[in-house]
């Protein structure tokens, strides 16, 4: 089913997949309290791609860790899943980081299998699925290669396949393309949209790139630093499949200007 189709189903009056209300997180270090995030309120439907954009230190990664169940929120309410789509935090999260973090002593295929091994899934079907995923991310033929034999972009594709191997309902991506060169990054954005639409997963995508946030997201949440809070959340109503061409449309410009304003960056029409 296409991503647009999934969104239509999700929007047809069922419970949202992620509900966050007034989420707040405070770090305590050396007797001081540091507000990491606050006022995070949003709903994400199943199959959506949520962009989480903001400057360094705005708590983007903290939100991601709370969604992964690695950090408890200090206030507010976070619900993931619904009666129809139950969510098991121990096996329904796939994570992709800024660095691919592939294990260099494992082949690409073995790297993709890691989450399946940790959860304890039957290995033969998992292996088959890993091969399929490698095909989907464009890495068929590289199954028995080692990470150092792959380029940075290819390593990140393998990391995306790894995040999908245990068929999780939620994929969390923390600036996954920030370490890539600009051209590879734009290619990976297109690839991600294709993979997302093929897999139908709900994705939360953290980035500090405003164009990237607008280009990818079905909706976009804007986080600011000092004070660390969520300043805005809005749907991005640009039809999929999206191509590089949309970046020059007035709608794209309007969305990016809206984010620049929230983040206190001057724009000519401001």
């Amino acid at each position, binding site marked *: 089913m296409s991503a647009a189709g999934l969104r239509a189903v999700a929007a047809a009056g069922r419970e949202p997949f992620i509900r966050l209300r007034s989420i707040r997180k405070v770090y305590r270090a050396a007797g001081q309290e540091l507000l990491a995030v606050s006022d995070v309120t949003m709903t994400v439907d199943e199959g959506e791609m949520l962009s989480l954009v903001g400057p360094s230190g705005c708590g983007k990664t903290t939100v991601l*860790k709370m969604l*992964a*169940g*690695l950090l408890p929120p200090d206030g507010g309410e976070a619900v993931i899943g619904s009666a129809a789509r139950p969510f098991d*935090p*121990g*096996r329904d*999260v796939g*994570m992709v*980081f*800024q*660095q691919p*973090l592939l*294990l*260099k*002593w494992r082949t690409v295929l073995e790297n993709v299998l*890691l*989450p399946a*091994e*940790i*959860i304890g899934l039957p290995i033969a079907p998992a292996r088959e699925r890993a091969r399929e995923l490698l095909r989907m991310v464009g890495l068929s033929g590289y199954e028995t290669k*080692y990470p*150092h034999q792959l380029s940075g972009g290819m390593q990140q594709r393998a990391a995306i396949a790894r995040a999908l191997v*245990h068929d999780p309902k939620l994929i969390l991506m*923390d600036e996954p393309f920030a370490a890539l060169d600009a051209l590879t990054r734009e290619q990976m954005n297109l690839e991600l949209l294709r993979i997302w639409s093929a897999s139908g997963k709900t994705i939360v995508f953290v980035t500090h790139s405003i164009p990237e946030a607008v280009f990818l997201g079905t909706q976009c949440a804007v986080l600011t630093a000092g004070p660390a809070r969520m300043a805005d959340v809005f749907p991005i109503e640009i039809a999929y499949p999206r191509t590089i061409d949309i970046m020059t449309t007035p709608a794209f410009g309007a969305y990016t200007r809206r984010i620049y304003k929230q983040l206190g960056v001057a724009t000519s029409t401001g």
Partner: protein
Amino acid sequence: MKPRRAELSAGVIVGVHLAALAVWQVTCMLVDIPRYILPPPLDVIATLGLPKHDFAGNTLVTAAEIFGGYLLGIAIGVALAVLFTWSPVLMLLVMPLFVTLNMIPKVALGPLIVVWFSYGIVPNILVTFSICCFPILLTTARGLREVEPDLLDLVRSLRGSRWQLFRKIQLPGALPYVFSGMKVGAILAVAGATVGEFIASERGLGYLMIQVQSSLDTAAMLMALILLTVLGVILYGLVLGLERLVVVQDERVA
């Protein structure tokens, strides 16, 4: 292309060594150097045939000390590093003591080891062990500690166990560190066994060197030195070979 290059470099290595021996030989023939200062290499090699030196037997003894102490050093060094990783409290308590123990010049333990364990192979295995264990312990512990925090999050998000983290990520990730400790340890092990034999032995190549020194038998001393070096090269070569088998090589780093 690659095998030809390997053959070429092997040829260069052998050639350079033979050339050095030739220069040594010719120098001794052309320049009047007393034999007790620098005997020519052919004289040195000739000592191998003299039964009084028992080079075969002495080499075996020293090899047993080197390999015994070295294997013990690896086993205990790696085991302690793993133990420390599983019990940070133990590491906190014991590590400062170990750092101090590591500062002891191990060769200075020789006279004490004679008192405690008498002469022979066993005390020299202990000297060898004490000198090569610490670098292996320290590098292994460091390797086990170096886990990317994000990778830790990945395992934790899947509710992975401590054992899974250790078995799948920490231990294989630490292997290159274990080997770098083992390479340092291999060189130290040969030195440890030799010095041990200087102090507390009645057999072995180190002991032989002290014996023939009194009669200014420089050729036999040099032969012992060459055999010690060969033992070191063999040990180091075995470690390198094992590393190549066990550790996935990253060409960009190597």
